């Protein structure tokens, strides 16, 4: 195959060095960029998982920072606490909390699935691939974790909606 840069020192160490020194703007040419992250449709369920896990993670981090700030109003006494609590007692606040419940449930269950898959569990074992070359790692066994995550997130959101809108009575 064509080596575009002409003759190249092909040892592993110099290759690693070249990667480390990659400062050439053209090296980034045709990289998909963030568009590559946000392409959840055509690559299967694992890509959906990747996208949702990342999105819920960022969302939950924002919520966590907000939650720590929100609870800090405790130190200013009951009035400040009540004023802060008031903000979450609106319909918008309830919807936001329901989204937090859904995101945290999904992120947790899918995260457990990912810990298993990252540990090589539930992916099958290497073998001798034969046509049509269906990959063993993208199987329904580990994917079921993703579906369970979606289902439990929906259930948790319904339960959360019930608690929040009824005050848990």
């Amino acid at each position: 195959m064509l080596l575009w840069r002409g003759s190249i020192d092909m040892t592993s160490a110099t290759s690693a060095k070249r990667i480390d020194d990659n400062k050439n703007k053209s090296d980034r040419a045709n990289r998909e960029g963030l568009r590559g992250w946000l392409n959840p449709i055509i690559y299967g369920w694992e890509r959906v998982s990747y996208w949702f896990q990342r999105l819920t993670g960022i969302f939950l981090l924002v919520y966590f920072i907000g939650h720590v700030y929100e609870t800090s109003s405790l130190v200013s006494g009951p009035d400040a606490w009540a004023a802060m609590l008031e903000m979450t007692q609106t319909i918008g606040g309830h919807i936001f909390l329901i989204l937090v419940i859904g995101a945290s449930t999904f992120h947790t269950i899918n995260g457990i699935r990912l810990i298993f898959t990252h540990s090589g569990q539930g992916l099958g074992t290497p073998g001798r691939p034969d046509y049509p070359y269906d990959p063993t790692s993208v199987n329904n066994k580990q994917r079921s974790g993703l579906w369970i995550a979606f289902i439990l997130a929906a259930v948790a959101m319904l339960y959360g909606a019930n608690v929040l809108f009824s005050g848990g009575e």
Partner: protein
Amino acid sequence: MNIFKKDKRKEIKNETPLERSNTSTSGQSLVKLRVFRINAVQNPNDVPHFDEFQVPVKRWTTVLDALLDAKSYQDSSIGIRYSCRMASCGSCGMKINGIPRLACYTKISDLDTNTITCEPLPNFPYIRDLVTDFSQFFDHHRSVMPFVKNKKADIPNVNELTEYEQTPQDLDKFLQFSYCIKCGLCYSACPTVATDLKFPGPQALSQAYRYLADSRDSDKSKRLKVIDTSHGIWRCHFAGSCSHVCPKGVDPALGIQLLRSHLLGLSNSEKKLAKLHDRSTNSYREGEGE
């Protein structure tokens, strides 16, 4: 093609979409081939555009056949790289209707459409038209030291060298990953590669596992050092896209996860592998002593 409903063994129906499509005056089916055009080397400021060609196709026509037809009879300047035409060399990788595929391995009748859009592989710098620069890709491949390294094999006296014994079970641990043809489809489908220049990509990481799992290899620590960095194996999030697009069933995602389980110290198979490796080393030593 919707990859969620992937069925490569699609039955050949009596009436394919092509037969319902436009037909030329000679009665042959025609498809519209949209080809990405750019000459990035000759003119760095060249604006990419698509050229369209009407190409006659049959049920068994591949995208590569169609491109070569367009190149032969309509525009000889189309830039395309190909060699074996049988999914063995990995030269003709390109984005076909939005998904990285081998042009020689993609039948037009399987695409269920009359418009075929061919673009260069994403995440590879352009050279010309559908031809991309694989330098970074091969740099990453080489950086993981894709070769068997065994200190005991470095014997000055060549006549002293003996063959390595390897059981079929040992072979099965890495054989799948050795089927990689370095076509770059996994690299172009990977979401991390889309933004991370230093990430080795699915191909290089699965090759790292291929040599790690090889019972003949004894120099694992250096390879693991290269991949255990802030832009190494941990930037894989198991999006599985690499395995979806791999035309040879290498399943890079599996190799990467097994490699990661090795780094996490969680893999039972790795412990077994280590035992096997010790055993083979001992038997080698015994053989040496005789």
